[in-house]
């Protein structure tokens, strides 16, 4: 019998497509229902119902009712970034353990409110990121064992190779907003937040230090979709950390044909004795054969950046087949790690409290990109 009843918040065209199925595949879990707030737009409610239907569970259109259920132990939370503060607090106050989509929230106040509610409730929390992957664990071990000596730098990249590149208009310097308020659009997302959170969380976790200063730049280099909403498709950070080390982190989307696999997902760790690269693409198997080479797939009108597996499935988008991974999916590794922590009643490393700092760094990054100056934290 399953040990944990799991409630899914959010549906298709959110990362719940992956997290929900990863929880469902774990024998410790039973998916109880899909739920969301009652006053969400009809298109979102429809996509939530679709995931519930695909997973064979009911859809509960009133989150409060769903959270009152005694058979819900864990909430997998994929509300839109703009609603995460409110929904995250509500889940914690209901006494449920929470698995958060990344980033924790779209603002520092919301992120802090979530972390405070989680602490008050005494529940466990974890935000999805890359730290439970085998390559990230190898990097952490190398740092802890002094393989590169005393660490001096951490340099992480999360650059997603999806979307049709070359559609942006004439290049011009981007004028960034110091306080972005909207992050989620149907066609695109703010990539320095959405992708940058992976690399920022990676460098801070590896360093085990807090960021002291943040310098960042953003740009519109590849996609008309981002340009049309005046949001960046690429961002980069330079950080100084407590203790003297430095870090850089990139987050962006570079287009389908800019990488032989899913994208550049890696970290370079440097130190007084040497440096080493740890990558999602390593180890890998490379296949060269007479299959047709990968070519630009059709663009889904509701998902031109190819963010969701459901739209790729609907279009029959072929995968890139030349580089073959030797690891399980990062989502399965991460949800499994969260459940291990619940089994042992220990706090996950990437909990809500830790994830607050990512939001602080990224929001400081937007202020820096707007002003052209480093920002002290």
């Amino acid at each position, binding site marked *: 019998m399953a040990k944990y009843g799991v409630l899914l918040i959010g549906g298709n065209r959110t990362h719940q497509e992956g997290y929900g199925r990863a929880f469902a595949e774990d024998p410790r879990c039973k998916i109880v229902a899909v739920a969301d707030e009652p006053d969400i737009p009809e298109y979102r409610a429809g996509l939530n119902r679709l995931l519930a239907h695909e997973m064979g569970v009911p859809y509960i259109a009133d989150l409060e009712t769903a959270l009152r259920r005694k058979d819900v132990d864990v909430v997998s939370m994929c509300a839109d970034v703009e609603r995460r503060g409110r929904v995250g607090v509500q889940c914690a106050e209901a006494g449920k353990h929470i698995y958060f989509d990344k980033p924790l929230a779209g603002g520092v106040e919301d992120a802090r409110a979530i972390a405070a509610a989680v602490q008050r409730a005494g529940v466990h929390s974890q935000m999805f990121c890359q730290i439970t992957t*085998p*390559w990230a*664990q*190898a*990097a952490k*071990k*190398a740092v802890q064992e002094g*393989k*590169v000596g005393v660490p*001096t*730098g951490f*340099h992480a*990249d999360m*650059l997603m190779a999806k979307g049709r*590149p*070359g559609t*942006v208009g004439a*290049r*011009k*310097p*981007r004028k960034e907003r110091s306080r972005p308020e909207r992050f989620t659009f149907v066609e695109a997302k703010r990539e320095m937040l959405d992708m940058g959170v992976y690399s920022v969380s990676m460098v801070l976790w590896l360093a085990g230090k807090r960021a002291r*200063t943040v*310098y960042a*730049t953003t*740009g*519109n*280099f*590849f996609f008309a979709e981002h340009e049309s909403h005046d949001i960046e498709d*690429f961002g*980069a950070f*330079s*950080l*100084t950390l407590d203790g*003297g*080390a*430095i870090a*850089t982190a*990139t987050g*962006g989307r*570079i*287009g389908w*044909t*800019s*990488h032989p696999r899913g994208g550049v997902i890696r970290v*370079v760790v*440097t*130190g*007084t*004795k*040497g*440096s*080493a*690269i*740890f*990558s999602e693409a*390593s*180890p890998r198997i490379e296949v060269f054969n007479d299959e047709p080479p990968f070519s630009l797939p059709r663009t889904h009108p509701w998902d031109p950046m190819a963010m969701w597996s459901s739209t790729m499935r609907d279009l029959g988008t072929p995968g890139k087949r030349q580089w073959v991974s*030797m690891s399980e999916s990062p989502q399965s590794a991460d949800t499994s790690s969260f459940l291990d922590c619940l089994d042992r009643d220990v706090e996950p490393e990437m909990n809500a409290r830790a994830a607050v700092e990512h939001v602080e760094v990224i929001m400081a990054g937007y202020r820096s990109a707007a002003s*052209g100056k*480093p920002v002290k934290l």
Partner: protein
Amino acid sequence: MIQMDPGLSRLQESVKGLIKQGRVGDPAVVRWYMRTPATRHRTPDALSEAMTTIAGDWMGGPAISANVVRSGKELVTHLAYGSGGFAIVTAAIGPGEPANDLMVFGSRGAIYHGRTPEGGSL
């Protein structure tokens, strides 16, 4: 300015040639990490200067602003160009295997070059 390494000059010209041919569209971002052994004349600042000059050559001109952070013999120069593009150039001097890891992202494609010791996976 350090004496330009012949390998570095070849890299500069090769990448520049690809950019000129339009193979990756308009160059947008340079992400470059390089680590070399210590020599009497080589400092992180000098290595960074050489890399920054080359990055500017690829990006179509010198940067209009730069932010520098350093830790020991490692130096990151984060450059912004008038075109709106940027570069993150990391120069490190120290022991261990040399590393040269370059990525250039253009509006329609990417250039990858280099070798950094692999840390492996668990």
